[in-house]
Structures are given as C-alpha cells and as structure tokens.
C-alpha cells in the first residue's frame, strides 16, 4: 500500500536515537509523577506489612493492572512487535504462549496462595515444614529466578534506551538503577504497585492508539493489512514458519511459559497486596483480560510495521527488530508520538526492574534474614531495615551485572528464568499446598533438583552451547532449547520420592488444619 518513496523517507527522517524535546518531556513527566507518588507512599510505608504488601489495601482492579504491569515487559512489547514484523505469524504463536499461564495460575494456586502466605511465596512452601531448610531452598530458587530475569531486563534496557534516546549504555543502566531504587527504597510495595499501574495504563493505551492508527490506514479492515503484508513478503509471512520445528521443543517451551508464571516471585508477591482470596481471584481475571488484549493487539502493530515501514529499514536500525514499534509510532504520529512511545518503554523498564528488586529484597530480608538468621525473632523494625538494605544491595548488583553483561547475548536468560521458576519454585509450591505427605526433605530436594537441572540443561542446550558459546551446530549435549519438560518433571518426581521415604508426622498433622486456611481463609493474614 505505501509507495516505496514514502518508506525511504522514514529512514531518512527518523529521530530515533537522538534525544528529542517530546521524548525527554514525556520521560520527565512520567518520572516526576512516579516520584511524587513514591513520596506519598513513603509516608504510608513504615511496617513490614506496608513495605512488602502495601498494607494489603490494593483493590482487585488495581492489582489486576499491577500484575499486568509486572508481566508486560519492554522485551515483550518491543520484542514481540519486532518478531511479528520480521518473522510474521511465528511471532503471533509466541505471543499466545505468554497468556496461557494466567488461567493456570487462577485454577491452581491464586486463592490458596493468598490464604496461606504473608509476604513471600516461601511463606506458603514452608507453612507446615521446617522453616530453616525450606526457606533457604526457596530463597535460592526465588533469587535465581529473579536474578536471571533482572539481568535480561537490565541488558535489554541499556541497549533499548541507547537506541531510543542515544544515552550511553552505562549511563542508562545507572539511571534505571537510581530511579527504580528510589521507588522501592522509599515507597516499598505501595509505590511499586502504583508505578506498575501507571505503566500498565500508559502501555495499554499507547499500544491501542498505535493499533488503531495502523488499522485506520487500512480502512479498519484487518484483512487489507494482512494482504498488504502478503503482497510484500509473500503468503509465508502469514503461515507458521520455523518456530515450531520440533513439537517436543514447542511443548517444553509452552510448559516453561505456562508454569513458570506460577513460580515467578515478583508476580506471586502481588497476591499478598489484596485484602482476601476473592480479591486475588478477581485480580487474575482483570490481569488476564489486560494481558490477553495486549497480546492480541501487539501482532497488529508488528504486521503494521512490516507493511508500512518495511523489514529492511527495521533491521537496519536494530537487527533483532526491537525498534519496529517505535519506528511505526514515528511514521504514524511524528516525533511527539515516538517520544511518547519511547518514554512509555522506559517507564516499562523501570517498573519491571522495580518489581523484581522488591521481590529479591523480600526473599533476602523476609526469608533469609528474618526466618533463617534471626530464627523468626527479628523485630518489625529490624526486618524493614534489612529489607531496605537488601533492596539497595540488589539494586547495585543489578546495575553492575547490567554493565558486566553489556553486549552479551542474554535473550536466553528470560527463558532460563521461566525454566527455573517452573522447575524449582512451582512444584514445591503446589505439592506443599495440595499433598499431605510432602516433607521438608522432599521440598528441599525438589527445589534444588529443579534449579540445578534447569540451569545445567540450558547450558548444554543449543540455546547456550551453540548460540551463545559459539560451538558448532548439533554439538549440544541436550537437544531441547528449553529444558522445562525434563527439569520440571524431575523436580516433581524427586519431591514425591524423597517425601515418600522421609515421613514427617508434624507436617501431615498440620496439613489438616492448614486446609481450613487454604479453602476457607480462616486465619489468613
């Protein structure tokens, strides 16, 4: 549909990579508003319950938006739009996988999690088991998950900010670190939640406007958009390509995406911010509505970019296609709209990293410091102080790792985070909630098996062995790109077998009383 001359004009005129007045203005507005909210939240963040769980005063609708905010990262917004733009239908298949964990989260654990837990998912795993070993193991699984996710986010954010604003990579890392630390340190969960809500609203509305303008170019007929794509890149752009070449690989990745969600500490922690199990349940409905809508419209943006901008120009700016959506925004709405979308992407990065940092800090201060080092006898004041120190340490580590991994291929780390989440955290969590015979030894062995298998297998898989370390094709010792199908199954089997050979009387007795809390919410905090 667009003449070639028009396409060429886009390439010449792009202001991408240069700081423009609109992009800086939008960015400053977002930062000022969120810091103002942080100031407001800081006066309401004194107790541990306020720091970790926003005083449990978040409504179901607010939590739905915040969950969506935590989950829709810049990587999924820019990455999936780019993948659809460059690879067509394969990007759409990938997008579907990001939603299907949410119903599973609802059916299996959302309500019991809210009823049993206090501040972290380890509260639930350790509920009727021996605190010290289970807390240590859960914290290992939780922190590993968050750490790999954070590295991927930090490295991605450095290059994205460089591409969009022209800021040096290291500066971008430090800027993200400083602003997000301000949110978490002073405003705790309350500020982090509101940052997520603002970011989710901005992202959803920004992408919606982008989609509507794209469709308006095709007289609101999606068919015409697809025809334009097929005209330029052939019918193959609308057909499944190489993404699912091996069904087992596809199922293994699907399992990691689906059940990984049920083991992401920063997502699980959100369920402790609502008043009760009913609010937890309804918040998942809202969250999956927003996220589902997001993954339905993102492919339209991606196809729009390939039809209106062209794959050549998109890959010229960034090989991975990450700039497809910003380029499209500029083409359709000029520099101001690009500025808005770039600022939204920046806000997205800040919010996701803030959520991850809070989750990591909670594991360190609540699980390790308060329960293991202080044996559950830390005063509230000590625990809140420890959580702030942990936040600071994790924030600095995140920035340093971001700088250390500059230029490295870290795309696999998101897959790895999901693999650890579904192999280490998810099996122990569900077995602890639903299986009476589950024991301390079973939990520890299940978590460690899942964590080490997920990490070990991914290192010898084609993803790392060939793509990252540069070994020849076909030399990987483990054939699957994502190990979930093996590591998650092994974690369940080990948890089950070890529990059978180590009977734990008190855990079994407590299971009956626990049921009252799991199903009726009696005694829930």
């Amino acid at each position: 549909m667009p003449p070639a001359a028009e396409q060429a004009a886009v390439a010449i005129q792009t202001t991408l990579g240069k700081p423009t007045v609109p992009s800086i203005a939008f960015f400053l507005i977002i930062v000022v508003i969120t810091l103002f909210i942080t100031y407001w939240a800081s006066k309401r963040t004194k107790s541990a319950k306020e720091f970790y769980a926003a005083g449990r005063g978040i409504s179901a609708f607010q939590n739905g938006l915040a969950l969506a905010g935590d989950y829709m990262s810049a990587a999924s917004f820019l990455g999936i739009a780019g993948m659809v733009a460059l690879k067509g239908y394969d990007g759409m298949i990938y997008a579907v996988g990001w939603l299907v964990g949410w119903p599973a989260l609802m059916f299996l654990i959302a309500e019991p999690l809210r009823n049993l837990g206090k501040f972290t998912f380890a509260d639930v795993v350790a509920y009727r088991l021996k605190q010290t070993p289970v807390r240590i193991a859960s914290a290992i699984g939780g922190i590993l998950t968050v750490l790999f996710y954070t590295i991927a986010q930090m490295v991605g954010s450095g290059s994205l900010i460089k591409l969009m604003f022209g800021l040096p990579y290291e500066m971008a890392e430090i800027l993200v670190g400083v602003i997000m630390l301000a949110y978490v340190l002073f405003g705790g969960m309350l500020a982090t939640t509101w940052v997520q809500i603002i970011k989710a609203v901005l992202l959803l509305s920004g992408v919606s406007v982008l989609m509507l303008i794209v469709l308006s170019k095709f007289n609101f007929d999606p068919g015409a958009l697809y025809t334009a794509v097929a005209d330029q890149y052939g019918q193959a752009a609308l057909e499944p390509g190489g993404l699912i070449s091996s069904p087992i690989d596809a199922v293994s990745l699907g399992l990691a995406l689906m059940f990984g969600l049920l083991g992401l500490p920063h997502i699980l922690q959100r369920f402790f911010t609502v008043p009760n199990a009913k609010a937890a349940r309804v918040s998942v409905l809202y969250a999956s509505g927003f996220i589902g809508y997001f993954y339905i419209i993102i492919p339209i943006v991606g196809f729009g970019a390939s039809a209106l901008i062209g794959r050549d120009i998109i890959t010229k700016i960034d090989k991975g296609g990450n700039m497809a959506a910003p380029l499209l925004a500029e083409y359709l709405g000029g520099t101001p709209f690009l500025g808005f979308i770039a600022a939204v992407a920046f806000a997205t990065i800040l919010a996701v990293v803030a959520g991850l940092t809070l989750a990591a800090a909670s594991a360190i201060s609540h699980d390790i410091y308060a329960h293991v080092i202080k044996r559950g006898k830390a005063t509230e004041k000590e625990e809140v102080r420890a959580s702030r120190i942990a936040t600071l340490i994790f924030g600095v580590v995140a920035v340093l790792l971001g700088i250390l991994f500059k230029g490295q291929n870290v795309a696999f780390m998101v897959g790895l985070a999901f693999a650890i989440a579904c192999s280490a955290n998810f099996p122990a969590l569900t077995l602890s909630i639903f299986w009476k015979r589950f024991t301390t030894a079973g939990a520890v062995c299940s978590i460690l098996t899942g964590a080490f298998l997920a990490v070990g297998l991914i290192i010898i898989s084609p993803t790392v062995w060939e793509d990252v370390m540069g070994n020849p094709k076909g030399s990987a010792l483990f054939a699957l790109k994502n190990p979930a199908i093996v590591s998650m199954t092994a974690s369940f089997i080990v948890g089950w077998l070890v529990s059978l050979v180590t009977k734990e009387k008190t855990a079994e007795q407590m299971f009956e009383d626990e049921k009252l809390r799991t199903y009726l919410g009696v005694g829930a905090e």
Partner: protein
Amino acid sequence: MAKKTVQNVLDSSQFKSLVAKRAKVSTLLMTLLFLLYYGFVLLIGFNKPFMAQKIGESVTLGIPLAVAVIILAWLLTLAYVVWANAIYDPEVEKLRGQLFD
C-alpha cells in the same frame, strides 16, 4: 446452637465436598486449558498446511485461531470466577459461620 470445633468442620461432609468440588472444577478447567493451548501448539507442529490454509484474500486460518486461543483462555478464567463467586464463596461463608457464630 453450640459452636462447632475446627475438627467438626474438617470432618463434615460439607467441607469435604467443598474441597472435592474445587479440585474437580480446577482439574476440568486445567484440562480444557491444556487441550486448548497444547492442541494449538501441536496442530502447528504436526499440520502446518492446515494452519496455513487461506480463509480470506490472504488471511490464514492460523491467525483467527491464535486470537481464539487467547480469548478462550480468558473465558476459562471468567468461568472459574463466575463459579467461585456463585457457588464456592457462599459455601465458604456457611462453613465459616459454623465456626464463628
């Protein structure tokens, strides 16, 4: 009426059937979700031409199917919420009432 003890409630057929009902509903919905999503993935894996067939000028069947998987998955969560609000919650209230009145 005398207050029931925790043990009474745990042993009551009402509580046991509530736990069983929740397990049944979540197993059913999980099964549907599995069929929906892995059905979609495996259909692509084993029958690409099916997904690639045109249903319009150039639109392939795979495109509306991908959207349908997302919408249906959301409808499953809606089904769970409707069930839990209408049936699960009132029974929870009844059982809690036996403990606390």
